[in-house]
């Protein structure tokens, strides 16, 4: 048998479950790769992750070292993106700030969908009274203005990066709950669930082994599309001084630093904004591409 790996992956008659799974993944990847913009988004994000990991080695200077004699310097060979009001190198701060951005986005993107998945599937699976109560709570949170609610949360808990993450997660979960519930309702009465039940599977096992895996792909798409929004909200909180505290090089807070000097020293505020824009654009492109691949309405699963 002279099989290449590609043939093995694209086989119409997979021999093992693993081969079938890998094949489905590979076909998804082929579709994704065909979308140039989505690939661009992916490349930018991979670069960003690389920058975040290698930040101490990549950054030309420390993000905290002040040099008051060399403050508010325009971009030059020595400081590629200029210096801020305390003479700190803006490029170095941006590079280190990528860690904070990834931390916030990553944590919120882990917490919010899990809360939503849990509430949504339990509501959809249990039905009746529990469904009514859980969905009513979800609707109440959906009806709130998100940013204002996050502001109020942070104000009550005290401004810090952890509380900003918590506030963003607390305001971001309801759409996931809605989505997970809708998915659960469509498969609740499916034959394979009945079959598993007849084999003696309890509700918890049904939920975790059979329902959750089927909700994941649509949740992933939604998360990817929401990432940009999370970045923008987090930057907004940082800008208002409610996220990462100085001297942390958080991008939103850096814009806020540069605000006072905007008319004469534009680069201080402009550079972090460009960074935020590039990253959230990359997430949007990636999300669009993922939606094409994982769209639950497509042939996919």
């Amino acid at each position: 048998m002279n099989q290449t790996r590609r043939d093995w992956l694209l086989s119409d008659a997979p021999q093992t479950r693993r081969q079938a799974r890998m094949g489905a993944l590979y076909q998804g990847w082929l579709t994704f790769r065909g979308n140039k913009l989505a690939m661009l988004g992916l490349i930018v994000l991979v670069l960003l992750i690389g920058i975040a990991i290698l930040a101490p080695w990549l950054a030309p200077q420390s993000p905290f070292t002040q040099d008051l004699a060399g403050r508010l310097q325009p971009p030059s060979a020595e400081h590629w993106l200029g210096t801020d009001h305390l003479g700190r190198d803006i490029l170095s701060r941006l590079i280190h700030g990528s860690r904070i951005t990834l931390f916030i986005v990553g944590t919120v993107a882990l917490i919010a969908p899990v809360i939503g998945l849990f509430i949504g599937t339990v509501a959809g699976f249990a039905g009746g009274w529990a469904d009514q109560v859980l969905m009513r709570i979800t609707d109440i949170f959906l009806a709130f203005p998100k940013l204002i609610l996050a502001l109020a949360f942070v104000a009550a808990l005290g401004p810090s990066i952890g509380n900003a993450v918590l506030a963003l997660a607390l305001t971001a979960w309801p759409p996931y709950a809605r989505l997970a519930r809708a998915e659960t309702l469509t498969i609740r009465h499916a034959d394979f669930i009945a079959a598993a039940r007849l084999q003696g599977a309890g509700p918890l096992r049904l939920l975790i082994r059979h329902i959750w895996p089927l909700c994941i792909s649509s949740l992933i798409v939604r998360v990817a599309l929401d990432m940009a929004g999370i970045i923008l909200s987090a930057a907004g909180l940082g800008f208002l001084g409610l996220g990462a505290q100085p001297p942390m090089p958080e991008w939103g807070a850096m814009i806020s630093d540069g605000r006072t000097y905007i008319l004469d020293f534009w680069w201080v505020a402009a550079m972090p904004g460009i960074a935020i824009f590039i990253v959230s654009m990359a997430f949007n492109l990636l999300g669009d591409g993922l939606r094409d691949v994982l769209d639950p309405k497509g042939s996919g699963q």
Partner: protein
Amino acid sequence: MTDADTGRGAAPSPAPDHRAAARRRHARSIAGTLLSLALTMLGLLLVTFIIGRVMPIDPVLKVVGDRATQAQYDAAYQAMGLDRPLVVQFIRYLGEVLTGDFGRSISTGQLVVDDIRRVFPATVELATLGTLIGVAIGVPLGVIAAARRGGAIDQVARVVALVGYSMPIFWLGLMGLLVFYGILGWVGGPGRQGIIYDGMVPTVTGLILVDSLIAGDWGAFRDAFSHIILPASLLGYFSLAYISRMTRSFMLEQLSAEYITTARVKGLSERAVIWRHAFRNIQIPLITVIALSFGSLLEGSVLTEIIFSWPGLGQYITKALLSGDMNAVLGGTVVVGTCFVLLNLLSDILYRVLDPRSK
């Protein structure tokens, strides 16, 4: 920012002999809407109440000051009802809010209600103009993008929306100030009015553009317009990104329907097919989208107001936040939340009233 998946569908059209049943169903669905409105408001107040309870700031100290004796402190503690069970406190809070009593703001020394009454019109003026700009450009853009799918305008609309979804609004505002105020000098700077016009126009509606027209003061109108146009365009851009995307997808759905093919086969011009047939059918869902977008601008204006020193509700809440003025924060949150809920309700009602299928 807003969620399109409201799960709103037209009620099934009733057969003639089931009118009474349909009416009953209608009444029940209205009652259901009102009930969920009440529950949502209760939830909103419960959350703000809890936030007010967990805050690390001692409300008693704010009233009596640092140098109060223990006896004074205890007296104030009891007078504020803080020794009562939480449930009792919550019911008392409900009663206060329902009578419009949000307490006194610590930073301005005024009643929070009066403060909000003063600053809210500024936010409404900004959000309204922003929505108008968003609708005026976004709807035609979405319609044309759908009609010429894949064409140049469709691509432009796509990029416009993508950039809109990816741009930090406060940053764009700063850059706008830099370019149009700092460098070009085309617009008025931060704030709502220039210094010379400040307080010159008698307040009637609180909307300066309208008030200056009522007073017939053209100079004041021009001044106010030059101040509002940049922040309003900014908000308008974000609402445009959302509205044009939704318009496009609604239009695509209609244009693939069979009645459109019929209309085309009849020999109607493309223009008539698009605007008289397809566009008519998207007007109702579009109203929902516009209402949601207006709501999100009321909220989204928080950051914009900070950038442009716009004396509106967003700036009021943020300033209160930073000075630990919890009464003002919670009052503002309740007001914005209520507007949000009411806008949802309004779009729901409009949907029912305008959609002939739900009669």
